[in-house]
């Protein structure tokens, strides 16, 4: 496939690794923020190609994983309403809430449908006018513009049985929160390529300037990731702290203006709770007031019960780069993809799942 195969060339990969190995005097922690990068790194065996002095940390860039337990519990409560059809991206279904999961509720008769695109959720709403469709809108800046676009379609078409549960999150504030906490040393960020398609490289300037941490926006093929690592090491060696774009075939400094305008039209920035990271100011998106008719949380106020994470699950620490999954006492022995105890093992791009499958 074009734009894929040529970026997987083994011989070139080895050449980049050789260049990486020249920086053997640097002992660095580099964080790949995005879960899709984590998956590529494991699946393509990149970790094993890297020298010991380059330590990769997985970051909080897995939307399912960072969804707070309270939000998970709320979606489970919503699913119990007989009149509601839940439309969701697949990984959410198996995440264990405090007492149940969407999957378990489905077993009890709840109508939970897995979709690939928000446009399918619209179709479900059109086909079921007597029922109410709640779309679980999770995701980062890659996904929020499409949800915004779909909501505008709903408004235009006057579909009146469609609601969204907005748990959207923003990446740069999470990166800043990690740096502020000083819990782990991060010497460089591999920034998420597709989030950056929307927000552009300029959105990370403050990270490079205020925190002196180099950033490289990387693509998702093996050569892209290796080259991003090489570019980060080069910056560190030359004592530069800049935002560079390795993935410039798709990412531009200003990002995608149309996508940004869609977000601005529908959403406003809000403080939001992340699993593992707590409440981060201005790190989420909620519906603007003029769209409150579509807000599932207003339409279906759920009873607030005490949400509790499994105390033995170290997912929160894994998301902060503080612990590796292998340091979790449930990992592999009790927690497996077949019987996950935390979202990091459920999501196809969760760090625990990546370790389990390819580690």
């Amino acid at each position, binding site marked *: 496939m074009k734009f894929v195969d040529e970026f997987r060339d083994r011989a070139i990969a080895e050449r980049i690794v050789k260049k990486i190995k020249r920086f053997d005097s640097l002992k660095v922690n580099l964080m790949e923020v995005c879960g899709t990068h984590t998956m590529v790194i494991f699946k393509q065996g990149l970790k094993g190609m890297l020298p010991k002095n380059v330590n990769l940390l997985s970051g909080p860039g897995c939307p399912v994983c960072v969804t707070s337990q309270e939000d998970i519990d709320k979606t489970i409560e919503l699913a119990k309403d007989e009149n509601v059809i839940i439309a969701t991206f697949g990984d959410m279904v198996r995440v264990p809430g405090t007492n149940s999961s969407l999957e378990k509720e489905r077993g009890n008769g709840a109508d939970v449908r897995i979709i690939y695109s928000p446009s399918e959720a619209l179709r479900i709403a059109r086909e079921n006018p007597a029922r109410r469709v709640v779309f679980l809108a999770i995701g980062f800046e890659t996904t929020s513009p499409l949800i915004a676009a779909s909501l505008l379609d709903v408004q235009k078409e006057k579909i009146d049985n469609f609601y969204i549960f907005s748990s959207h999150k923003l990446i740069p504030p999470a990166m800043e929160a990690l740096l502020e906490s000083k819990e782990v040393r991060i010497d460089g960020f591999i920034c998420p390529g597709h989030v950056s398609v929307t927000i552009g490289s300029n959105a990370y300037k403050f990270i490079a300037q205020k925190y002196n941490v180099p950033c490289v926006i990387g693509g998702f093929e093996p050569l892209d990731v290796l080259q991003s690592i090489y570019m980060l090491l080069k910056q560190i060696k030359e004592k530069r702290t800049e935002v560079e774009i390795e993935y410039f075939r*798709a990412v531009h400094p200003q990002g995608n203006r149309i996508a940004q305008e869609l977000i601005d039209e529908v959403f406003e920035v809000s403080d939001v709770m992340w699993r593992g990271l707590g409440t981060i100011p201005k790190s989420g998106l909620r519906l603007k007031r003029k769209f409150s008719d579509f807000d599932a949380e207003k339409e279906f106020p759920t009873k607030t019960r005490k949400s509790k994470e499994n105390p033995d699950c170290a997912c929160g620490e894994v998301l902060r780069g503080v612990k590796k999954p292998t340091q979790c006492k449930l990992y592999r022995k009790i927690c497996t993809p077949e019987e996950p105890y935390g979202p990091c093992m459920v999501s196809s791009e969760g760090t625990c799942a990546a370790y389990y499958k390819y580690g």
Partner: protein
Amino acid sequence: MCLAIPAKILKIEDNLAQVDMAGVKRQADIRMVSNVRVGEYILIHAGFAIEKIGEKDAEETLQLLREII
């Protein structure tokens, strides 16, 4: 979840394009990418094109990757 896959545009009708995604024909909403033409490549995420892929930029990247310094 932020997966986006390259696809070739086969046909355009208003805001919808018919695309070839790794040999599979699909529909994609292209309202977020301006000035795209049949034959060009776009990145598809959850049924929407999120950006056009710059062919020249991709070639330049490959040049950079092949560089031995």
